């Protein structure tokens, strides 16, 4: 297992390189210079899912009661605290960081190691922060869309963010036994997939091109997560998206 310092150093270095293409621009869901590679990787991941993960998740869903699935989701959400807390600080949100800390303590000690989300009852909602978002708040552009093996949709920036998350993450802090890490990760992955069986099926049904569907949804969603922090939640405001009359040049960087 690589050391935390090495991961952090790699992340900082890569972020510095990426910041060369800084600039807070609206999302470009069709900007995909690595599409050839990405489509192959997407195809590979999809086959793994269809023949490997999804059947396992269906079995899991059949055997494991709903309550237990919920509890596991809460447990793994709670385990993200070491990632959420520093990233809140790095994004200049000390108040949110304190809320995350309170939530983690309540859920760990009262919520029986995080299996019960007691903090939500007190209005402390689970937070969703990661290093990729922090880099976005720091005005680092996402760069090209990138489909990672096994991990799925990402971007040049967010892939760097994943290294940051790993460095901050719980496993590198306390648990150095690989079997525990691998086992826990496997349970998390299968359980999460089981909770999303219907969503994924709907998305495949609703799309004419599932690859483009996922790419667009990923880019929009990341933009929204980062933009919430910057502007207090104006959400997506792509110029010309809602313009019926002017169609010319609606996409910057369109190569048609």
């Amino acid at each position, binding site marked *: 297992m690589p050391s935390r310092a090495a991961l952090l150093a790699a992340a900082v270095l890569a972020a510095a390189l990426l910041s060369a293409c800084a600039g807070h621009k609206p999302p470009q*869901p*069709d900007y995909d210079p690595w599409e050839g590679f990405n489509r192959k990787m997407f195809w590979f991941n999809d086959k793994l899912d269809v023949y490997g993960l999804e059947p396992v998740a269906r079995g899991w*869903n059949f055997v494991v009661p*709903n309550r237990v*699935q919920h509890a596991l*989701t809460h447990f793994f*959400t709670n385990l993200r605290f070491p990632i959420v807390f520093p990233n809140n600080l790095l994004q200049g949100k000390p108040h949110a960081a304190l809320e995350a800390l309170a939530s983690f303590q309540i859920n760990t000690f009262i919520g029986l190691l995080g299996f019960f*989300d007691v903090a*939500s009852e007190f209005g402390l*909602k*689970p937070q*969703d922060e990661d290093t990729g978002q922090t880099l976005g708040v720091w005005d680092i552009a996402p760069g090209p869309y990138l489909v990672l093996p096994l991990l799925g949709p990402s971007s040049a920036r967010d892939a760097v963010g994943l290294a940051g998350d790993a460095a901050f993450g719980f496993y590198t802090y306390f648990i150095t036994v690989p079997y525990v890490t691998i086992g826990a990760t496997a349970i998390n992955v299968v359980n999460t997939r*089981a909770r999303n*069986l*219907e969503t994924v*099926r*709907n998305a495949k*049904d*609703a*799309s*004419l*091109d599932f690859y*483009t*569907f996922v*790419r*667009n*949804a990923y880019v*929009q*969603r990341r*933009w*929204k*997560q980062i933009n919430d922090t910057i502007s207090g939640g*104006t*959400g*997506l*405001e*792509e110029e*010309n*998206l*809602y*313009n*019926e009359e002017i*169609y*010319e040049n*609606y*996409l910057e960087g369109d190569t*048609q």
Partner: protein
Amino acid sequence: MKRFTRTTSRATRSSAWAAGLLVLALAGARAEDRTPSQVVDGLANQVVPILQDKNLGTDQKRERIEQIAYQAMDFNTISKLVLARNWTKFSSSQQGEFEAEFKRHLSVTYGRNVESYNNERVQILGDRQEGRGDVTVLTKILRGGGNADVVVDYRLRQRDGQWKIIDVIVEGVSMVSNFRSQFQDIVSNGGPDRLITLLKEKNASGETLVPTPHSGG
């Protein structure tokens, strides 16, 4: 006698006019009075009872909700936004065909969710003024609190005095933007006919699809 009749007919005519004007005024007032939030709220209030009705079959529910959704949405505008500049590559008959098939596609794919309704409720959080005179209504679908709730925004535009939905944004993902990305690729590679054919194929297979069992709330 003759004179009498004339006066009555005149009286009836003028009262009919008055009644007509009154109706028009009421209708106009109603259309203007319904703010975007009220439109979305009304939509939820119409749809939720249908979903909860145990006496209705899946197909009946789907049909009724489809009618309500068609009323609430401006499919002509949605079609233009989704095709963007490609809209002009479509002949007027292709435009009509696309609009019909796209509508069908949304109905078939989203209508299937009727079966998985599990007492979710809609909460209106507020609204936001947007460019072009649009208004976005912010809502949340309540599914037990915390991360389970889903944030859904509806963007509305006024057409002939009535607010109609032109986009649905789920957890920050705009439906218009998403379909635009997909259709852009298809039209630039295969032209308008390719897109219409693909939609038809998808709709045909979707209608015969056997619904898969619940994946547990």
